[in-house]
């Protein structure tokens, strides 16, 4: 049987959903025989190629993330939003209560330990921030939602196994966790 090709990426997030994927422990080794990873933070492949499944962790908060999201969408037959940030915006969306300029000023100028006499705000070779952080389905079509902060490894496993069988996973209630 041909391996299922999977690409993953992380956007505005904490990497916890990818870590939860690694929390499949020994099952990861078993699944590795059925999956071929394309571009992913855990591989050294940097460019997206056409894949069966694209998995996105994180919300969208800057222009670079949006670019990456569009690329993985174009290359994926099925796109999975993994975790609360990708599904709803999550904790990063808490920045939406404040103006972007206020956030940058606090972080780079005002914080007690910051020494920044010129009041420099990073702007060279770094992506521009959007005024607000949004879930990925505000920009692209999402086929599968796996919520949780992070989703339990069991939920991730369930979704992956369904996808490996060519089905669109519908998570049973016991695997849906909200905090």
């Amino acid at each position, binding site marked *: 049987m041909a391996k299922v090709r999977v690409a993953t990426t*992380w*956007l*505005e*997030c*904490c*990497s*916890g*959903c*990818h*870590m*939860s994927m*690694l*929390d499949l*422990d*020994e099952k*990861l*080794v078993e699944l*590795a025989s059925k999956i071929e*990873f394309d571009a992913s*933070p*855990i*591989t*050294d*492949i*940097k*460019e997206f190629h056409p894949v069966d499944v694209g998995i996105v962790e994180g919300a969208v*908060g*800057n222009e*670079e993330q949006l670019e990456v999201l569009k690329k993985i969408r174009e290359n994926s037959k099925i796109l999975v939003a993994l975790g609360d940030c990708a599904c709803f915006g*999550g*904790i*990063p969306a*808490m*920045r939406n*209560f*404040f103006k972007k300029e*206020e*956030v*940058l000023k*606090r*972080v*780079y*100028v005002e*914080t*007690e*330990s*910051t*020494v*920044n006499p010129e009041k*420099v*705000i*990073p*702007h*060279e*070779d*770094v992506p521009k921030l959007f005024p607000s952080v949004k879930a990925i389905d505000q920009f692209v079509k999402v086929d599968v939602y796996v919520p949780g*902060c*992070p989703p339990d*490894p069991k939920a991730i496993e369930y979704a992956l196994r369904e996808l490996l069988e060519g089905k669109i996973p519908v998570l049973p209630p016991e695997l849906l966790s909200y*905090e």
Partner: protein
Amino acid sequence: MGNKLEIFPVTRVEGHGKVTIYLNEDGKVEKTFFHVTQIRGFEKFCEGRVFWEMPVMTQRACGICPVSHHLASAKATDKILGVEIPPTAKKLRELMHMGQLVQSHSLHFFHLASPDLLLGMDADPKIRNVIGIIEKYPDLAIRGVKLRKYGQEVIRTLAGKRIHPRFAIPGGVNKGLTVQERDSLLKDIDWVIDSLKDTVRLIRNLAIEWGEKFRKFASFPSFYMGLVDSNGNLDLYHGKIRLCDHRGRIIDEFSEDEYLNKIGEWVEPWSYMKFPFYKEFGYPEGSYRVGPLARINCCDDISTPLAKEELKLFREMIGDRVAEGSLFYHYARMIEALHSAERLKELLEDPDITGTELQVVSRDFKPEGVGILEAPRGTLIHHYKVNENGEIIKANLVVATVHNNHAMNKAVELVAKEYIRGPEIKEGFLNMLEVAIRCYDPCLSCATHAIGKMPLQVVIYDAEGNKIKELVKGS
């Protein structure tokens, strides 16, 4: 300015980043930048929240070492309550922290760094990853998976959840450890200790085998920072912050409450990650390194027997008090993982650990609190100011990976100058730059609590600043 190369994204690190290299007219490396390309703004959006939410909220800075933020935050909130937490609560928190060090250090070594070390820095990028390790060294891969699993299970046993646990609360913890739970954790601890001891030997043998290449890779003098206990021993959970120089001489020792007098964070226009430095020496002269190698360089000794022995062998091997090469981070990391596992066992065998006094309550809020510990990647500081209702007025986080920002830039520069001649670059050389960054196991998610992502693509600019070549790593 000559050519400019960019590497994006940098992979097999936790977070978001890229590297830019400028070449001069002769095609030699003139300048390099390691940029971090994410910011989230925790220091702003925590404002207005009540302080007891902080241990739960701030750990969302990082899914790799959430426990570090969870506990550093809890320590800061204890100070706001103005209480000493009960011995059982303190030991349970430390137990959780040791579990996390085992899982995080194992994850880094086996899942992220070992492909470079075991498959080769210039191996085919298609196999140069954890899956490649699973295929070529299945026993080792399984060992890595199991070690991480054990550390994560310590966390899950205490908190019901591996990532983003809810366990530490202001004034203590919300759950005790039962005798059955303790016994089930004790069951595998000897296997964990043995496996980590073997892993220390594995990296040791690699260091001996690679010889000069290992020793000299991205090696440079710097200051080092790490926590030590009252005897000068390595302490990953509490203690004084020690700063030593490149010869291992102690420059300063201070408590977390003094951090603002000692540490500043510089801002550069080209990175979302700040650049901490020791104030007395200014920036960049006062830049220092943190994390496993820094802690091993700073401490006089280690209290647990097996790690103590490994530290002795380490120092004999380098023939010096301080190791400067970046690859030694991997070696130091495994010595620490071994120490953490030994400490885990000590804590599990401590009669206090199954105690039932878990929390101290206070209604009298102090205006501010600073919490500190050694996260897997280095010293982590959480600092909160609150109003009389306990709402956060100011939050400041100085995060482990951020301290190493200057060091990572320096390491990239050294490696680029060593290996890159002109715009024709082999993928394996590009990976070398990432290998340099990976030594520091940067958690860019954490670092950009303000943002973070790392893949690598090289863009080359000529002397006029025109893009003449783009080379994507591993495409």
